């Protein structure tokens, strides 16, 4: 098969998974693994290693703009972001019945409260709210998180009927280290040659990775990476931008396409940030739970979800990311009503602008259907960077 064909096959596979509102991939996995179970997790970060080590399929629950909302709106007022509506819609229509457990990380109060709703709506599912360690002191934070992880480890083991031994957990950690590595490579390639890795494709691949388990993902990601490295595409005259603020509710694919078509290359983003939450490898030596805890407390990506102990941290974040990605500008694209993203934005934007980085900001919803506004803004942004260069 030609490289282009391999690549488009992978993208098509991923796109099929993305478009599928029935979680067929998960159901198929369960059929193919009799006796095993699936555990969902909400954005942004959940310790997938622990789920995997319990022999369960980790299932990222990210909402969707493509599902018609009927019951979801029954639980949410108009001024709450869209994500929990589609998730509740999935759940209430029985599409998530195959899950035996769901983890709710402390991303924001919406997801936090959703954990309580879940407990009431699905009393038979194991539900755990994961209070990520929000603390300035690493020793205290790591110790707290280690204990939390122990609880999850023990209880998922109970749900799965498996003892999550150190050896099992270490194996899972090793596997996820590989996953993290390949994602880093894909992101690096896109940043290097964005025309080779259109964000639309990268995104679909990442999105599929949330549903198929690490083994299947690794296989496809490797195929795609090899093909993309050498499948030469036309280089266009576009502006290099970072998209930030979309770590939880995901933008519709149309928005990603619109931004690229309006003259921008996306060279860094925080879509599905959970899969890049730990910036480095997790240690394979020593107690694996401690290793996971340390990795989060000492090596988490800088994000709105976690407290920033460094007073200059917010100010410098965009500057550092822009430098790393050699970007021309930053697009703050947050989900409407997303507290974490929107409350952080003034600080991040201030820092960026003080560093002379052009910025624009807009809000979307996962079900935004009209893109003119975004096209107009992204277009004007790239117009002005192109017409005026550094001036």
């Amino acid at each position: 098969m030609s490289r282009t064909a391999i690549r488009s096959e992978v993208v098509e596979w991923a796109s099929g998974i993305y478009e599928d509102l029935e979680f067929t991939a998960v159901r198929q996995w369960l059929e193919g693994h009799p006796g095993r179970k699936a555990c969902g997790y909400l954005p942004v970060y959940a310790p997938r290693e622990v789920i995997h080590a319990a022999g369960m399929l980790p299932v990222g629950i990210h909402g969707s703009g493509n599902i018609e909302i009927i019951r979801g709106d029954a639980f949410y007022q108009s001024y709450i972001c869209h994500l929990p509506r589609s998730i509740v819609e999935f759940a209430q229509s029985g599409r998530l019945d195959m899950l035996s457990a769901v983890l709710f990380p402390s991303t924001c109060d919406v997801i936090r409260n959703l954990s309580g709703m879940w407990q009431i709506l699905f009393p038979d599912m194991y539900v755990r709210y994961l209070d990520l360690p929000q603390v300035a002191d690493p020793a205290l934070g790591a110790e707290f998180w280690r204990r939390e992880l122990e609880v999850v480890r023990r209880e998922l083991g109970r749900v799965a009927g498996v003892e999550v031994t150190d050896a099992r957990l270490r194996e899972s950690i090793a596997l996820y280290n590989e996953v993290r590595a390949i994602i880093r490579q894909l992101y690096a390639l896109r940043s290097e040659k964005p025309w080779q890795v259109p964000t639309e494709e990268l995104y679909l691949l990442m999105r599929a990775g949330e549903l198929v388990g690490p083994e299947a993902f690794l296989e496809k990601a490797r195929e795609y990476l090899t093909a993309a490295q050498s499948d030469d595409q036309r280089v266009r005259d576009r502006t290099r931008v970072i998209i930030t603020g979309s770590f939880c509710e995901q933008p519709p694919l149309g928005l990603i396409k619109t931004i690229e078509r309006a003259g921008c290359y996306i060279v860094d983003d925080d879509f599905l940030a959970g899969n890049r939450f730990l910036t480095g490898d997790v240690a394979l030596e020593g107690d694996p739970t401690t290793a996971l805890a340390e990795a989060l407390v000492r090596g988490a990506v800088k994000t709105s979800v976690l407290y920033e102990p460094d007073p200059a941290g917010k100010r410098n974040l965009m500057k550092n990311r822009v430098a790393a990605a050699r970007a021309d500008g930053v697009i703050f694209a947050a989900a409407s009503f997303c507290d974490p993203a929107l409350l952080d934005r003034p600080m991040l934007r201030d820092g960026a602008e003080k560093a002379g980085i052009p910025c624009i900001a807009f809000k979307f919803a996962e079900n935004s259907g009209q893109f003119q506004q975004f096209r107009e803004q992204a277009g004007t942004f790239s117009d002005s960077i192109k017409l005026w260069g550094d001036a």
Partner: protein
Amino acid sequence: MSITCFVGTDLGSTTTKSIVLDERGDILGRGITNSRSNYERAAQVSRSEAFINARFNLLRREVTAAAGHDVLEHLLRAFRLEQTLAQLKRLHELTLGAAAFDIPGKLAKPAREAVDAIVAAIRDEELARFTEIDPSRRSDFFRDAVGSAWSRLAIELADPDGVTYDMLLGLYDKCIIQVENEPLALGFSDHIGTALLRIGDPADVHTGVQHAVETELAVLGEVGTGYGRQRLPFPKEMIRSEILCHGLGASTMFGGTRTVLDIGGQDTKAIQVDGEGIVTSFQMNDRCAAGCGRYLGYIADEMNLGLHELGPLAQQSTRTVKINSTCTVFAGAELRERLSLGERREDILAGLHRAIMLRAMSLLARSGGVDDEFTFTGGVANNPAAVSALRGLVTENYGDKTLNISPDSIYTGALGAAIFARRSAN
């Protein structure tokens, strides 16, 4: 003869409806008009229409027996014609006045001539319509019926370098308000005489008409409801929330009702009632009026169609277009954009109807779901495409449920109010 009766008036945001009940609680008359700037007037007009309707119902049996059904129909249409002509006459006077005042200099004369010509043409059309055997349907409201004729004729008569279309339409827009808000004499006794003459004054119906004129309709109780209820000239205890009225009205129409969906012009309500018609929970749309009946009104305007034509057109769709935004004010723009993207009118319309119903489904879910039996009320229930979209969504999400729609659905709130009036009088 005297008949005891009870009146309920529902001052909606788009239409005002009245129901007259007799002593036994049977509907004696229905009246409807478009809500307008003067709430009190709107309530008076719809009330007076309900009494006209009541009197026609009173004379129905006698006239039908004496002269046959066709004569009754003919008389009714003649009566409507007389009312229309009376309003048209007033509109004519006012527009001439406005033309003299607003349009300066040498255009004043041609403007007045154009007004004369338009009014004469409308008058002719109305007369011609009267002689037609089975005239096509159109809005019952003077504003809409005459407005669309005016606009059509103004396009024909306009002169881009002289009296323009905008000027002519401006005259209409300005004066129609006054016509609507003046207390014109449009009641039963005002026009029944001339209406009789117009159909040749058949002697065999005189007694029936005489009886209807002479019957006293003694109002023992009156309750107001609806969006504008606070402005009705009623004491507080005679005013009921429209939620309660819709619940009670729907449950009276269909005794098994447990869930009510009411979609009116500006609001949507999902109501759950118990076996007695008492509301147990309700939800209404928040401050955003997206996806309410008015939305369809804008769409109809944009397409130059009557409201009643929208549904049937949407039902010809083969492929529902997905619509996201349902901001009512932008409805027209959304439609234009979709059309410019090459979508078919029917398909867009189908999408719009589905979008409205999706919002309604959310409210229903919020209020506690859809229970058997389910009754759909309010003006939008007259729209077959809305009904079939709703039916589909309900079945998909709640399984098979009995869906009731009454031909009187738009009067549900008024009916509930009238029943309250009757109850509190007893």
